[in-house]
């Protein structure tokens, strides 16, 4: 392919697109957050409600992400390694959270687990509160971030095939050893990427969580809800600082991915 004269304009177009949609708005948020000095920003993020929102966001991610990691790897293994009637249905079901609006997912959770929902009376008699409480927020976050691990891990499992696992079996490895020593190292990259996407989605989820949490400041407000709440109550300083915190969290997750990705990946490279 010849070096076309379109190369330079193309680069500018891509960079310009990125600048308009991502770089410019995000840096404006950073600028606004620290506009009145670090002290003001620090005060805003250490307010009781902000700290609680940070803590709750972290807690939800700490529960929902491991849940979806285990579930995602499990479903991927089932879909990749077993043939059974209805496999296509399971495959399609996993994608539903991608296809329908998070608001609908939140609403559906209320219909099932709310006070007047299907399990409502049972949950009431056992004094379990799901909706407008932390369990509901975790469920909503897990629901919307369900597909990411499966969609990253399943193709890798299909690509590597079963021969390495069979070879390990003939060498004396039991199912758990095969998984830990053969399967897991092979899907490591896809899994890391899937977990990163899941985490990012859980941190940033708004719609589904807004419906199920009731958004009570200091109680059921995650960081995204805190930002929305701050904007509503014209507390822009808190909104900007909350947004920066959210960005930084995402940045940390992305950095961790890049670091794990760079480590120990020399076996992927072909040497001529």
């Amino acid at each position, binding site marked *: 392919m010849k070096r076309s004269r379109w190369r330079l304009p193309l680069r500018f177009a891509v960079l310009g697109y990125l600048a308009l949609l991502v770089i410019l708005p995000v840096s404006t948020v950073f600028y606004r957050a620290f506009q009145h000095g670090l002290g003001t920003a620090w005060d805003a993020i250490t307010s009781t409600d902000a700290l609680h929102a940070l803590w709750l966001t972290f807690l939800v991610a700490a529960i929902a992400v491991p849940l979806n990691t285990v579930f995602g790897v499990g479903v991927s293994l089932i879909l990749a390694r077993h043939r059974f009637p209805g496999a296509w249905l399971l495959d399609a079901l996993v994608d539903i959270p991608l296809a329908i609006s998070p608001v609908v997912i939140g609403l559906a959770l209320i219909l099932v687990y709310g006070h007047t929902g299907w399990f409502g009376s049972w949950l009431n008699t056992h004094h379990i509160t799901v909706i407008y409480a932390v369990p509901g927020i975790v469920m909503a976050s897990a629901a919307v971030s369900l597909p990411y691990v499966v969609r990253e891990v399943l193709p890798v499992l299909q690509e590597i095939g079963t021969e390495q696992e*069979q070879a*390990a079996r*003939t060498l*004396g490895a039991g199912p758990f050893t095969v998984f830990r*020593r053969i399967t897991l190292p092979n899907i490591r990259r896809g899994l890391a990427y899937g977990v990163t996407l899941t985490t990012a989605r859980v941190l940033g989820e708004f719609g589904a969580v807004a419906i199920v949490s009731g958004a009570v400041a200091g109680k059921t407000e995650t960081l995204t809800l805190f930002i929305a709440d701050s904007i509503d109550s014209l507390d822009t300083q808190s909104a900007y600082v909350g947004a920066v915190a959210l960005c930084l969290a995402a940045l940390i997750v992305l950095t961790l991915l890049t670091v794990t990705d760079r480590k120990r990946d020399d*076996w992927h490279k072909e*040497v001529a």
Partner: protein
Amino acid sequence: MSIRVTSISKRFGDAVALDDVSLEVESGSLTALLGPSGGGKSTLLRIIAGLDRPDSGTVHIEGEDLTDAPARQRGVGFCFQHYAPFRHLTVRRNIAFGLEIRHRPKAEVKARVDELLELVGLAHLAERYPSQLSGGQRQRMALARALAIEPKVLLLDEPFGALDAQVRTQLRRWLRDLHDTLHVTTVLVTHDQEEAMEVADRLAIINQGRLEQVGTPADMYDHPANEFVMTFLGPATRLDGEWVRPHDLVVHRFEDGKPTTAAVEGTVSRVTHLGFEVKVDVELAKGDECWVQLSRGSALELGLEAGQRVWVARADASTPSRSPMLSA
């Protein structure tokens, strides 16, 4: 007997992979399961290894009924056609795998792996990853990995199938030498009859899920049990409705007169020079065709060319491949 499979049958959906196959493999022998692709020979190998389960029949290894035992408890070394290297492990760790999961002492593992690396000639590549090896090197690594667990039997699925011709020939010799050193009972699957005859002591011919014949390469070449074995094991052509090896035929000039009573008249339709060997296609008077394999010398002596009238006859009336059961 090292391996004894009895009345093994296996279906995949509607397709019959194996139909009542029984086979015994002697301790210390090198047996080739030979047959066309899709004939069921790989399935039989996988059933012996415990990677597939038979619908019926039993598998005994060293006298022990292992029909229902999982692969990991059978003590078989299995080499896959595409070697199935553990891509995330170095050559050394690949070979050490079976010993590591048995939690053998580190020093013992290292000593054993060093020995195997030496045996397969990969000592200088021990710290490489499989992606950095050639096909032949991967093959040898897979063999060393299977041998590390000191298997009772070694099973090789199309061991040379994925290699180019030159490496293939080298590895064949190497495998034969290795077997002569180690005497591990070995079963290999191949669809290449030349490869099977060169490497193996015994052949088992499998076609369409059935075991056609078992024996030594020379014996089966000379005494094929049926038409399939005759045509599969080597070149074959038909003269007067009977199967015969084309190198067991001779051509006489027509003008020299009918050489034997059984000689058949024909016309040369094509002469193909293949170096030492010359292939002569003859259109027989009765409308059939046959071909004769001649040495370059005898072809030149006869001065054969297309259109020439000739007699075709058997070189030796007592040629064993003329057994009456082969009459078509």
